[in-house]
């Protein structure tokens, strides 16, 4: 990974990734560009990675939505909120200065992810599904003018049905026309509807649901269903493009800077994309914190993984090296993002010296003085055995269930909640399981199913979990804040 300290100056030639021989930037004028042209401009490694990561957050959220059984409307709300945060894209009509850079980010992110996800059949399938969904959401959210612009910007090869032909098949077209329950309202809408003909093979989804009239292999598509053709087209183009990319990818293998990024990105789907919970490293001031205080914090705010580490540490006064490192990094990041909590370096009064060293180490004060980022869910999932990894992944189903109950029953988790959690675990959606636990244990704060850690976001980082939890407590009762700045 390319962290700030390792990165060379921006304009260092070596850091420029030649995505294509450097010509100048060409971007489509329409918002819903179909990614016809690869990036023909120079990008830095940093841009390369951040554009892709930000896009991946959104795609991972879209993918987890299926596992969380979100409705289309819920998915739209969540995705739009995420897009606003990580990948804003203003309409063509909007007069923002940022428009071109937004476009570039969108474009570049898409193409980097193509590289990352073209490499296996399974990844391609998932990427196509998530990207097509993102495309649909954007299309849905656009104003008519924007859509018109897009529809006229490319040739979709549909044949307008003239009034005479519409009259000829009036009975059939009307029977197949979906609309309001009220017959006269439906009929009125039908009269105003414009029809287009395409070969039925281009609208299989409409055919499967009998949403069109078919005659001699032609599907008569009402104007309001044209998007179906567009989505199908988008999907087909992307499938073909990914297969093409897969075949030309071996040439990229030589670039040792890009391949690790791609590897890392394609793993992002497993656990969602981590927010970078990097501490600033200037954590020298602060109050003493007693281990008992952490007990209380841990009980109220920690996700299962960190809770386990904390409990083990309290019980054994000992954690294995990686566990210590992870836990220390977590605590440190909590300090930064919790904003209400300062953990002193003297934290470990009751712990042994080695542990103290490790906390310091992870604070960047001792050892290599490296500025470590707290481990994300993705990293915890990748790491080995249960002691310092993700319990949802590493525990046996029996152990996980009893651990869940003993850890969270005081916060309202009941054994009747277990089947739902275990079902997501069984489907390998560990972060979804963790998110559900968060929702269940924070329902007294008004957190509802599907809200996740805010805006419907799934848990992708232990610190995100803890920070949100503390935020909820704080909002409810300021007096309960136990640590003062």
């Amino acid at each position, binding site marked *: 990974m390319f962290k700030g300290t390792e990165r060379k100056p921006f304009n260092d030639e070596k850091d420029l990734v030649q995505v294509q021989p450097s010509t100048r930037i060409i971007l489509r004028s329409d918002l819903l560009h179909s990614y016809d042209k690869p990036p023909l401009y120079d990008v830095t490694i940093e841009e390369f990675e951040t554009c892709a990561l930000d896009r991946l957050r959104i795609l991972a959220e879209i993918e987890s939505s299926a596992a969380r059984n979100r409705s289309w409307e819920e998915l739209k709300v969540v995705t739009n909120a995420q897009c606003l945060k990580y990948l804003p894209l203003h309409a063509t009509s909007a007069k923002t200065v940022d428009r071109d850079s937004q476009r570039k980010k969108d474009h570049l992110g898409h193409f980097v992810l193509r590289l990352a996800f073209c490499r296996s059949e399974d990844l391609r399938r998932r990427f196509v599904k998530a990207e097509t969904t993102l495309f649909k959401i954007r299309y849905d959210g656009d104003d008519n003018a924007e859509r018109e612009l897009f529809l006229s910007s490319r040739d979709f090869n549909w044949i307008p049905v003239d009034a005479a032909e519409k009259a000829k098949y009036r009975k059939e077209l*009307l029977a197949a026309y979906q609309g309001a329950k009220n017959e006269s309202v439906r009929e009125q809408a039908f009269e105003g509807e414009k029809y287009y003909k395409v070969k039925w093979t281009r609208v*299989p989804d409409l055919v499967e*649901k009998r949403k069109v009239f*078919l005659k*001699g*292999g032609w599907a008569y598509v009402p104007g309001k269903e044209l998007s179906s053709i567009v989505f199908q087209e988008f999907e087909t183009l992307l499938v073909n493009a990914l297969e093409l990319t897969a075949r030309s990818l071996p040439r990229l293998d030589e670039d040792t800077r890009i391949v690790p990024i791609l590897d890392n990105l394609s793993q992002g789907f497993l656990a969602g994309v981590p927010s970078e919970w990097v501490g600033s490293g200037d954590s020298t001031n602060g109050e003493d914190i007693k281990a008992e205080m952490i007990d209380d914090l841990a009980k109220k705010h920690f996700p299962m993984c960190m809770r386990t580490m904390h409990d083990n540490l309290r019980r054994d006064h000992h954690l294995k090296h990686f566990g210590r490192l992870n836990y220390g990094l977590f605590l440190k990041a909590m300090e930064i993002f919790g904003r209400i909590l300062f953990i002193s370096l003297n934290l470990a009064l009751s712990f042994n010296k080695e542990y103290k060293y490790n906390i310091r180490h992870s604070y960047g004060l001792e050892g290599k003085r490296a500025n470590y980022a707290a481990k994300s869910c993705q990293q915890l999932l990748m790491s080995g055995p249960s002691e310092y990894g993700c319990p949802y992944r590493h525990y046996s189903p029996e152990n996980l269930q009893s651990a869940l109950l003993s850890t969270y029953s005081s916060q309202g988790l009941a054994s009747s909640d277990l089947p739902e959690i275990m079902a997501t675990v069984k489907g390998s959606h560990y972060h979804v399981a963790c998110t559900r636990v968060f929702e269940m244990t924070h329902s007294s704060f008004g957190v509802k199913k599907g809200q996740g850690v805010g805006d419907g976001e799934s848990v992708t980082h232990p610190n995100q979990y803890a920070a949100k939890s503390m935020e909820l407590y704080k909002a409810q009762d300021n007096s309960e804040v136990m640590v003062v700045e």
Partner: protein
Amino acid sequence: MTSEVMLTFYRRLYPFKSIFNWLNHEHAPTQLFTHREFAFTLQGDVYLRYNSFNTAEELKKQVCQLNPTRFEIGPVYSARPKDKKTVRPGKFTPLQRELVFDIDMTDYDPVRTCCSGADICRRCWAFISAAVQVLHAAIREQFGYEHLLWVYSGRRGIHLWISDKEAMELTDDQRRALVGWMTVVKGGNEASKKLNVRLNARSLPPALQAAVDRLRIIFPDLVLSDQNLFASTEGYEALLEQIPDPAVVSKLRQQWQNDPSRSSEDKWVNFKKEVSKYERGSAQRATLTAAMEDIILHYTYPRIDAEVSKHRNHLLKAPFCVHPKTGRVCVPVDPDRIEEFDPESVPTVSQLLRELDALGGKTEPSSETDWEKTSLKPYVDMLDKHALRLMEQVRLDKRGKGLCSGAL
């Protein structure tokens, strides 16, 4: 069927050349034939997959050598199936195959009273006949395909092979969509579930309206008179379940309980009378009229084995194979005369061999065209005519393309 009988059948009667023409679409071998998978089932249930051949002669030679109890036809792959082991996995994918349908009598068990399971008679064949009429019209009128070959499966079902270029090239997704469009009644245990096919308040999708209009004529003879499906308590209770009007249901039930011998025809008349008691144009009457249409669809609409149609790489028994249990040859069937078709009149392999024997020394054994002198002839002629139309189409398409590129 002794293996000797089968061998003679393959040597002297099986129309390899006709099969080749039908699969290949042209006289000279193309990939449609050379990259096509053939799978053989040998005695003792040995199954040999991924065979392929360059010519009809090669196929015949292999068939006579292996003497399979039957063989199946699969898709056209991106490489020769016999080379499967030597090509890279990604390079061996199914590209084309006929769009196929399989309709089997067993899916009709819940709605037939004359036979069950593997048995079939002329009476229940009428269900298959209704299915063929509906499906044949739908495929042609709605999807515009023209090259349809119907083949009797040798026992209790029928297959449809569609060879139009577009149909050959359909992806699995598109095949699934087409099957979804066609499916109304799910087979097996789902068969008793209520239909859910109406789009708007009450109108049927136009495609199903066309089917109902066709089946409305068949329904009284087949379901009421011949199968007499609503005679038994079980039968009429199944009918009542599909009537969404509790008042009508309880009235009918009472009438029928009091008169156990009442025929299905009379019961249907009772039902219709109840419907007509509601005022024309009233909501109740519209609901019941719709229910009547749904009932007709439920009992007579084609019951398709969806899995067969959805995947390009599904194997299907080749026409003119012999059914191992009945000995009947899987012959093509003329959809326009489907109502006259009697599965029990289909020639069996032993009958054909007897016909050959009767010719005595008048013919050279192993001749290419021995079938001409037997009752297999009209069926082979049917396939030949079908293949000829297909080849003519391909010739025209090619010439059309040639003209276009010439003009450029």
